[in-house]
């Protein structure tokens, strides 16, 4: 009986809140990008549920009328003795027989208290899951805030698969940023295209990339023409790859050249780029296209 009760407690207090947190958090960011050992994952799970646990405990113990919602939990003064009665009766059949009807009364009061506590615990876990998910998913928007950067570096993304920021517009405030890749494979083929999806294994290691608008560099013709002294624009040797999407296995990749095209680059990015490219300090005024302009909050 005690084993059954322990399993129930484990499910209600650890498994369910963990699942609830993860299912809401993953609405904002894929969980597979967070990597780490089992111990690190367990530590993260404890940290994320410890705050709602303490808050729910405070509510269930000290904050009327919330301590009687959604069901009435009477006789708070009997809390400790009820727990003792229930635990000892679950442990020993002798105690259970001796307790008689007082066991069922104690169990009823305990059950009501647990319903109150679990209600607030799950509600707060869900709220914190949404809050952390929103913070994590809005990295590009909030990263200019130095407190947020510190929090993200140390807690939100202390262990993150590097492929997510590298192969998605995750770190850009402008979510329309396009990731372009030039991929050289072990078979000496060079592909170019837009990264539309990537896959990582349980350790956060890249397993494959899907390119759209993929083209392949016709190196053989290029070399033949070069040998024959027929010069042509390099662009002419890029040939369309049949099919909409090209999947490249990660273990076939020798070299990966990435570039990011943001339709709305910030003025700082533009100024830095121009100063470096032109080797002279410049002043810029950039007017964004109307179709890309975001609505400003009122």
């Amino acid at each position: 009986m005690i084993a059954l009760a322990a399993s129930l407690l484990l499910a209600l207090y650890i498994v369910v809140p963990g699942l609830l947190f993860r299912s809401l958090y993953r609405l904002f960011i894929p969980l597979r990008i967070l990597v780490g050992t089992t111990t690190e994952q367990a530590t993260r799970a404890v940290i994320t549920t410890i705050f709602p646990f303490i808050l729910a405990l405070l509510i269930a113990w000290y904050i009327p009328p919330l301590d009687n919602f959604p069901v009435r939990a009477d006789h708070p003064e009997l809390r400790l003795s009820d727990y003792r009665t229930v635990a000892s009766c679950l442990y020993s059949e002798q105690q259970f027989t001796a307790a008689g009807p007082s066991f069922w009364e104690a169990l009823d009061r305990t059950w009501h208290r647990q319903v109150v506590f679990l209600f607030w615990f799950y509600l707060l876990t869900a709220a914190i899951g949404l809050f952390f998910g929103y913070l994590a998913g809005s990295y590009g928007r909030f990263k200019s805030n130095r407190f947020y950067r510190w929090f993200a570096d140390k807690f939100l993304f202390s262990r993150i698969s590097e492929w997510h920021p590298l192969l998605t517009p995750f770190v850009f405030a402008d979510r329309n940023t396009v990731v372009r890749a030039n991929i050289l494979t072990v078979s000496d083929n060079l592909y170019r295209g837009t990264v539309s999806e990537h896959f990582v294994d349980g350790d956060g290691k890249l397993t494959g990339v899907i390119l759209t608008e993929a083209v392949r560099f016709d190196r053989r013709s290029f070399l033949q023409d070069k040998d024959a002294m027929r010069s042509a624009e390099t662009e002419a040797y890029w040939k369309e790859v049949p099919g909409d999407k090209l999947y490249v296995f990660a273990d076939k990749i020798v070299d990966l050249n990435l570039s990011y095209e943001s339709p709305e680059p910030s003025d700082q990015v533009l100024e830095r780029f121009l100063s470096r490219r032109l080797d002279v300090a410049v002043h810029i005024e950039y007017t964004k296209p109307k179709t890309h302009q975001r609505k400003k909050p009122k």
Partner: protein
Amino acid sequence: MTATDLSKLADLLEQDSLPSWLREEIDRRTSDILSALKRGQSIKLLGPHGEELIIGPVPQPAPV
């Protein structure tokens, strides 16, 4: 990823994250831009969707 903080990687990736038309236009008109700047003038680059980039010399601070 442990060796590099995400914020450092984000800064690195954000450098040069420009639309392709702008990069190509700057490459194509580098000499025009430089000569305009040398003359103390501004130059305007236009994008395919109505974007406008005006590049000019850094304004000098007014004499005190």
